[in-house]
């Protein structure tokens, strides 16, 4: 599925960028999500609004940022607010259309693990942890997830649920009272997965 002249990351980035509608307000994680969101902004979606958890609102970077709080983001933003304000007024306030982040491990109901591999108290691998993901996954009207495919990435059962997707599937997410619709697509180097409308199990769509 790899086109000549493009690497897997580039293909994922392009596929992810296409999912963003013009004018959407996106809460973007660093790395591929940020690259994809900026690609969308520079092509078909000039009015996409980029919000970073470090504080920039409406960032319009000319160079791709290396970190979530680059100077380039602050200088090109409509304004920069404090990190508490970002999480309180802008994310929890229900103003985010699309939450867009990466993941280390995912299950078939798009729940995500970014905390530990193995037992929490004695982990085999200590991953970075939650960051902003649990609340982005909960509050954004929809969620896009980017990750590289592989045995380690897609697992039957997560060692740790850091951020909720569709929990046990079906209407479990709604029943739990999570405000956002949850993941609408998981974009990988091998294709795009979407949740089945009823079971909410991830299904390959392209």
């Amino acid at each position, binding site marked *: 599925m790899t086109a000549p002249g493009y690497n897997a990351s580039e293909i994922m980035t392009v596929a992810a960028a296409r999912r963003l509608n013009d004018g959407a307000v996106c809460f973007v994680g660093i790395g591929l999500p940020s690259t994809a969101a900026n690609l969308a902004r520079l092509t078909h979606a000039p009015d996409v609004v980029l919000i970073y958890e470090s504080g920039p609102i409406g960032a319009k970077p000319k160079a791709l940022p*290396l970190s*979530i709080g680059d100077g380039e983001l*602050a200088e090109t933003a409509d304004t*920069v607010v*404090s990190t508490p304000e970002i*999480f309180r007024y802008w994310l929890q306030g229900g103003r985010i259309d699309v939450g867009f982040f990466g993941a280390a491990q995912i299950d078939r109901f798009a729940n995500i693990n970014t905390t530990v591999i193995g037992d929490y108290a004695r982990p085999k*691998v*200590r991953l970075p942890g939650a960051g902003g993901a649990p609340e982005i996954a*909960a509050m954004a009207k929809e969620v896009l997830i980017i990750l590289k495919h592989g045995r380690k990435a897609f697992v039957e059962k997560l060692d740790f649920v850091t951020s909720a997707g569709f929990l046990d599937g079906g209407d479990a997410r709604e029943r739990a009272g999570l405000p956002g619709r949850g993941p609408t697509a998981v974009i990988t180097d091998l294709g795009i997965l979407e949740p089945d409308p009823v079971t909410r199990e991830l299904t390959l769509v392209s």
Partner: protein
Amino acid sequence: MAEILSLREAVARLVRDGDTVALEGFTHLIPSAAGHEIIRQGRRDLSLVRMTPDLIYDQLIGMGAVKHLRFSWGGNPGVGSLYRFRDAVEKGWPRPLAVQEHGHADMANAYVAGASGLPFAIMRGYVGSDLPHYNDQIRTVTCPFTGEKLAAVPAIRPDVTVIHAQKADRRGNVLLWGVLGVQKEAVLAAKRSIVTVEEIVDELEAWPNACVLPRWAVTAVALEPGGAFPSYAQGYYKRDSWLYQAWEEISREREPFLAWMRRHVMETDDFAGFRRVLDETRRSMAA
């Protein structure tokens, strides 16, 4: 009332063994010089707080200064793991590290509660997440109006908060701008505070509604130009990605890490000394 001190004196006076210490700075204005000085002065048994522990916390943990960490994302941003943090959690080296793990929204709210004199913060969070099963400091409260259940987290009240800012005036008033993270809240939540700055000026010339910490809300100000390296200071210098990349190699194994810390931090007098020796290392690697 802020005193203008050398960083050495500020750390000597205000950071004590066993303290709960928050060094904050969200990607921007990370107080690296102050972190090194805490290591150089050999502080022990610290309980550290930081949303995004990165290189400077990896160094403090790897040098055995830390017994407890309250955090929400521990990685080398854009690069990978923090190997010293992982070694402490996975193998207990050089000493076991107790972790109290939260999410970013939670930590940000907990700093706000600390700055606001509240014992806890409420938020919509953690529904469906395993974190509350492993952290008994994430609890719930019920809204007395709607009956909704919300997450409750305890306020962060550090003994000392350390931040880096762009400017102070000669009386000790502090101005920062750009990405502000949780720095203001972290200072206001703490019993004592140290602010290192890029420069000390006659007049701050702050614009309306700027993020100013008045001198009476700060304990010590120390002039430390470049003190946020390898992170950046808006208006002064850019992020230096090289050290973040190099940290992968420097920190992966215990002995090379300790040797690097000895040469660059323990055997230098101050952050300027660190920068000189690091430049030598960097040139010799490039050669």
